[in-house]
């Protein structure tokens, strides 16, 4: 308490007294006027570049599909801070070898730690450190005992009032500065429209560099129930997506990828829908390569879910089927869990 009034008195004259040079005060005045004008526009934060297609990705089935058998046993050992361990088993897939995976997650309001290790000893790690509500530093690594399969990625995310900035380095070498570096900036121009640019700088060897830019656009509906995005990448790649929330329980998404490079012209369109029902989630998807797929996630009890997935490739005449179970075993009895939940809300870790 004693230190507080003196520090105030040192700050106040600095603001109140006119700055020594008039040009400095003028430029800071202009800066403040621009800042307050920008603030008065009330533009929303456009969201990070990484989350540009978040809604589409969570609606489409592509990221959730699996085949063969799968079992996930997760144990929630603590609610606040979050501490969970997961044992995952996968078997009989046409594309992936049988695997066992152990994962651990720890999170509180400012730190998110995640790690997983598979039966071959490959470790995946993730660390998010939130410095404030809109400043997050993230690190990600993939470590393998095989040479050349390891990856390290460090990034920093800043969410401004009406813009987002992200810088990223993948496998940076302190010796000769080789690696992949990315920087992105996204700015809201109206309440609906946001435009952005992403720069990619590749330096595979000290004397070899390559820089490429991709351009992003995002249009959000006024009541935020539909989003359209477009991403133009170098070498003639265009990805356009559309997402709409039709009702509380139904979302639809469409994705179009076009490659129009000289010598290679290709396009894939995907159409998907997601139903969020009381005890289940159902996703169905159709794409222009002739694949029809569906995934049902049915919860029989709060701690037990059953998954069925299927895909038919009509052009290749092939099919895939998957079944899975997800079991969550709390370390506490339901009564203890309830009282814990009432006592403290689970934290929201930095994402």
């Amino acid at each position, binding site marked *: 308490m004693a230190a507080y009034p003196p520090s105030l008195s040192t700050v106040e004259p600095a603001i109140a007294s006119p700055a020594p040079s008039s040009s400095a005060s003028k430029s800071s005045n202009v800066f403040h006027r621009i800042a307050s004008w920008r603030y008065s526009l009330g533009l929303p934060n456009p969201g990070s570049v990484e989350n540009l297609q978040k809604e589409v990705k969570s609606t489409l089935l592509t990221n959730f599909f699996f085949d063969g058998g799968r079992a996930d046993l997760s144990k929630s050992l*603590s609610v*606040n*801070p979050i*501490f969970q361990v997961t044992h995952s088993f996968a078997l009989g897939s046409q594309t992936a070898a049988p695997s066992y995976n152990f994962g651990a*997650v*720890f999170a509180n309001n400012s730190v998110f730690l995640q790690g997983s290790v598979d039966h071959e000893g490959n*470790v995946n790690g993730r660390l998010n450190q939130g410095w404030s509500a809109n400043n997050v530093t993230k690190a990600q690594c993939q*470590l393998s005992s095989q040479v050349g399969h390891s990856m390290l990625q460090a990034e920093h995310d800043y969410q401004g009032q009406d813009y987002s900035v992200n810088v990223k380095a993948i496998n940076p070498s*302190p010796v000769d500065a080789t690696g992949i570096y990315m920087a992105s900036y996204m700015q809201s121009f109206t309440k609906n429209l946001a435009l952005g640019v992403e720069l990619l700088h590749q330096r595979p060897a000290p004397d070899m560099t390559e820089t490429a830019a991709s351009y992003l656009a995002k249009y959000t509906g006024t009541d935020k129930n539909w989003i359209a995005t477009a991403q133009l990448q170098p070498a003639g790649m265009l990805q356009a997506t559309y997402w709409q929330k039709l009702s509380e329980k139904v979302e639809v998404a469409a994705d179009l990828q076009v490659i129009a490079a000289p010598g290679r012209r290709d396009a894939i369109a995907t159409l998907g829908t997601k139903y969020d029902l009381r005890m289940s989630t159902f996703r169905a998807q159709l794409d222009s390569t002739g694949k029809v797929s569906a995934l049902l996630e049915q919860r029989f009890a709060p701690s037990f879910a059953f998954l069925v997935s299927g895909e038919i490739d009509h052009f290749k005449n092939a099919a895939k089927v998957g079944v899975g179970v997800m079991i969550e075993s709390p*370390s506490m009895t339901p009564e203890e869990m309830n009282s814990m939940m009432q006592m403290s809300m689970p934290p929201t870790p930095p994402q």
Partner: protein
Amino acid sequence: MPSEETKERIFKAVELGRTVIHYGWIPFIIYIGYSRSNPQPSLIKLISPLA
């Protein structure tokens, strides 16, 4: 430009750091989670998938 010797040293330090993270990351999370959890879980529940 760093000398060959410095380069060698940095390379060795990076390799060492990589090995430490590779073997230490999961135990580190488990230790942090185990020591900060509320209430503290029993060790057998931590490791075994069935308990």
